[in-house]
């Protein structure tokens, strides 16, 4: 019997995904030429540039996603530690994987029409999405520093290419460059953190790290490991655009093609937050810091305790990483809300709004309790649905007066015609914005409610209060969007074309999800 027999069974969906991307790549490369010839004749005849290949491949990619999803649900082995402790599977990971595949699937679906109309004439684009998703599946189930780093790099590499995909557009290339430089830098920080941890403990495996940190007594300190942990956290916070490390996000969101932005906004966050949960809630959970800090910063003891008190009032058993995340979470919520206020472009606004949402996710993370993680996961689902909904609208085609080329909503003021020309879209958008703002009967409220509840239950009062107030702040600009789409006078006439069918379906489903989640808000909780 082959040694790894069962191991390969466990990662069958990932393997399928990987093979699918390779096969599709081969298919694409081989047949692109033929299709190109066809397209050339078409172009000569009818003056249009149909990216035939992209259509084929993207349909196949959607199929591949669906099959992966099916395989994922039918996987015989759900709980396992495999490949010499480099990969694990459990319920949390399974859940995150499903979420990742769903979000990737949906974001490809809603951008089909965009790709077609925008004539992104290269099928690699869609295959890179598949590959990135695949690497995220590996990322989430990695149980070792090395496999984690490799997976994260594979994913980031795909993203760098994707961000700079529109080679004709200066914005896109600039976004790609920025993303590459900062992403590489953050990967470097991450790698340095990993190496510090390895250097001071001699271990790269997550479960071993758990053991070694939980076994240490009062006198043993892992100062080096602690610093390593901070570096790892910083590297990750870069990737999910938490606040002190968020500067690249608005530029990259705005510059890269909208279909890619839709993908960026959701999927990597799910993967990395899933990994966060595993890494910080289990591995670094017992990392003893109080002693280490008091040893190192003997003089600044007073400062650190007041800082402690400030962040979590009466909180006694601070977890080591909690302070970092608390700070980032508070800062993200505030900066997200304030930054979005005077944005004119919709994608930049969504970037800031996602920064704010990351702040909320981090609340759930720094609770360090079961409720916190549950709330985090629920929020991820709700965020996924809301973001898909918004991007499904942004990605649907519009036409400007006197300009015959198909365009997309770019500025916020472009929404101003929505209620006049397309009331149903306007209602969908309004409900979605209300939900993002956290208005009660809608889905977004329940997400925030669970988060605030979990923050309260572990006595993180400050962060809960800031979270509440940031909701009001963020309301200001969400309401502005609703106001623009409903009440504003028309400035530049835009004519909506038909919303693509698949976008329409996705919009409808997500709309009803947002609207009627309150009928049974616990439905998300069961998982």
């Amino acid at each position: 019997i082959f040694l790894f027999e069962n191991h390969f069974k466990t990662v069958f969906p990932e393997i399928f995904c990987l093979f699918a991307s390779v096969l599709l790549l081969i298919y694409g490369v081989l047949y692109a030429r033929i299709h190109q010839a066809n397209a050339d004749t078409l172009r000569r005849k009818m003056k249009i540039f149909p990216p035939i290949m992209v259509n084929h491949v993207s349909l196949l990619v959607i199929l591949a996603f669906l099959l992966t999803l099916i395989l994922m649900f039918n996987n015989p082995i759900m709980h396992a530690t495999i490949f010499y402790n480099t990969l694990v599977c459990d319920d949390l990971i399974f859940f995150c994987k499903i979420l990742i595949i769903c979000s990737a699937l949906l974001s490809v679906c809603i951008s089909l029409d965009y790709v077609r109309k925008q004539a992104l004439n290269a099928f690699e684009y869609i295959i890179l999405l598949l590959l990135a998703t695949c690497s995220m599946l590996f990322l989430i189930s990695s149980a070792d520093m090395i496999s984690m780093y490799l997976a994260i790099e594979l994913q980031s590499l795909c993203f760098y290419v994707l961000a700079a995909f529109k080679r004709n557009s200066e914005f896109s290339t600039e976004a790609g460059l920025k993303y590459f430089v900062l992403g590489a830098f953050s990967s470097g920080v991450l790698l340095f953190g990993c190496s510090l941890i390895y250097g001071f403990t001699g271990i790269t495996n997550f479960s071993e790290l758990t053991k070694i940190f939980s076994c240490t007594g009062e006198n043993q300190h892992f100062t080096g490991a602690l610093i390593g942990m901070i570096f790892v956290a910083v590297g990750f916070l870069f990737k999910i655009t938490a606040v002190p490390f968020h500067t690249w996000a608005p530029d990259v969101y705005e510059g890269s093609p909208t279909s890619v932005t839709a993908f960026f906004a959701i999927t990597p966050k799910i993967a990395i937050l899933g990994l966060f949960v595993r890494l910080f809630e289990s591995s670094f959970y017992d990392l003893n810091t109080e002693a280490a800090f008091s040893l190192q910063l003997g003089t600044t003891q007073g400062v650190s305790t007041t800082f402690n008190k400030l962040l979590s009032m009466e909180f006694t058993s601070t977890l080591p990483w909690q302070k970092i995340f608390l700070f980032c979470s508070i800062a993200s919520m505030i900066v997200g809300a304030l930054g979005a206020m005077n944005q004119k472009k919709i994608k930049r606004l969504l970037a800031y709004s996602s920064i704010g949402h990351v702040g909320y996710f981090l609340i759930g993370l720094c609770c360090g309790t079961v409720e916190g993680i549950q709330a985090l996961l629920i929020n991820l689902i709700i965020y996924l649905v809301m973001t898909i909904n918004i991007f499904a609208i942004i990605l649907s085609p519009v036409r400007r007066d006197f300009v015959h080329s198909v365009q997309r909503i770019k500025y916020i003021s472009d929404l101003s015609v929505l209620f006049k020309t397309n009331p149903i879209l306007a209602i969908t958008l309004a409900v979605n914005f209300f939900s993002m703002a956290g208005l009660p009967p809608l889905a977004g409220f329940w997400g925030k409610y669970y988060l605030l509840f979990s923050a309260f239950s572990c006595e993180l009062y400050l962060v809960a209060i800031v979270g509440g107030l940031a909701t009001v702040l963020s309301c200001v600009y969400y309401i502005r969007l609703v106001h623009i789409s409903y009440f504003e006078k028309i400035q530049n006439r835009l004519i909506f074309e038909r919303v693509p069918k698949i976008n329409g379906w996705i919009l409808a489903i997500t709309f009803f999800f947002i609207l009627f989640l309150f009928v049974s808000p616990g439905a998300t909780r069961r998982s």
Partner: protein
Amino acid sequence: MSILVSIIFIPIIGALILFFVPNWKTQLIKNIALNVSCLNFLMSLLLWIYFDHSTAKFQFSQTIYSESLSFTIAIDGISLFFIILTTFLVPVCILVGWKTISNYVKEYCIAFLILETLMIAVFCMLDLLLFYVFFESVLIPMFIIIGVWGSRERKIRAAYQFFIYTLFGSIIMLLGILIIYLQTGTTDYQILYTTEFSEKRQIIIWATFFASFAVKVPMIPVHIWLPEAHVEAPTAGSVILAGILLKLGTYGFLRFSIPLFPYASMYFTPLLYTMSIIAIIYTSFTTIRQVDLKKIIAYSSVAHMNIVIIGLFSMNSIGIEGSIMLMLSHGIVSPALFLCVGVLYDRYKTRLCRYYGGCVHTMPIFCILFCLFTMANIALPLTANFVGELLVFQGVFCNNTLVAFLSATSMICSGGYSLLAYGRVAYGSCKPYYIRSFSDLSRREFFMFIPFVVVTLWLGVTPQCFLDAMHCSVANILNI
């Protein structure tokens, strides 16, 4: 299926039917909406008929269990009349827009039906969290009603203010709810009612609730949104705003703050008295110098709602019953006044006093009705407000004479501003610019006013049949 559940669901079903009616059949849409809301009104009267006066128990209760969510809807003597008031006002809202609303008719009707469901749900929800949910969700339809069908350019600003103010208060309340939930592990009202909270915690939670309710009431520093929202809202929006939404805050005080946190309520009573008295005197004087008719009525609502607050915190059953009566009568009289202003606005297209005058010569029937409601607003004996105010002052007098004295100045002030406004509209010589453009009430408008006249006099002449229903529940709240 109890009556209560069907009352909640009838408007929603009506709204669903409207979704499938094509946009251009406006007459059909209006008819459906009116019939549905009238049906709901009749159903809500059934509640009153089957209501058992002799108990403080929650009646018509329907408990919904699911794996994630279990809550009870039920009513007692306090919420009964608020539900009836809601169902009473919604048909009027649809009727008042019969001619004047010409764009987005379908959306108008749907918005009001959904609003009706939400408001009824607020009043019968016995779960703190879900109370909060519905309490807040009223914001969304209201925001759209003010913004879309409002009358002037400032409407957007008004809608904004309304939204942000209310949301800000209520988010703080959510934190209070979370504190409660953490202590007790439930948000069910009937369980919370039997729970003891420590005094320090009571004060904190009470303050968080206060932040939300004070905005809705509105108390003095946070009342700015109200005149703005009223002036910019369409007539029907003002009717709902004055009739129901202002009652949400006082209802919240009565339902949650007083019985759940008796210690904190006692602790904060002086603060509330002070704020309310300042509000009463300040807004009464502010009203006198307003020139916009709607603003006059809006400010007078602020004064009246603050009298309600004083009555609630008099902590005896006379004062509380008076407050409830005053809420009800204000819920009748103030919407009626807004309807009057709406009628004027439809003809004159302005709301500023200086363009009016001599309406008596041209619109006699209207002036009679307007006079009646103005008198009711002053709290003339035999009209609705009088009973409420009398009971409130009587209740407060037992508790604190000075407060009773100061708050009774509102009697004088309200006479001042109401009569001034009425005189400017009705008396004097006709203004020549508008001499051709008036007409007296149409038949629809007249029928719209009739129920208000009847209820105003009924409340004023035989208040006993209203008070009977609430005795037991009020006594229960006070733990007598």
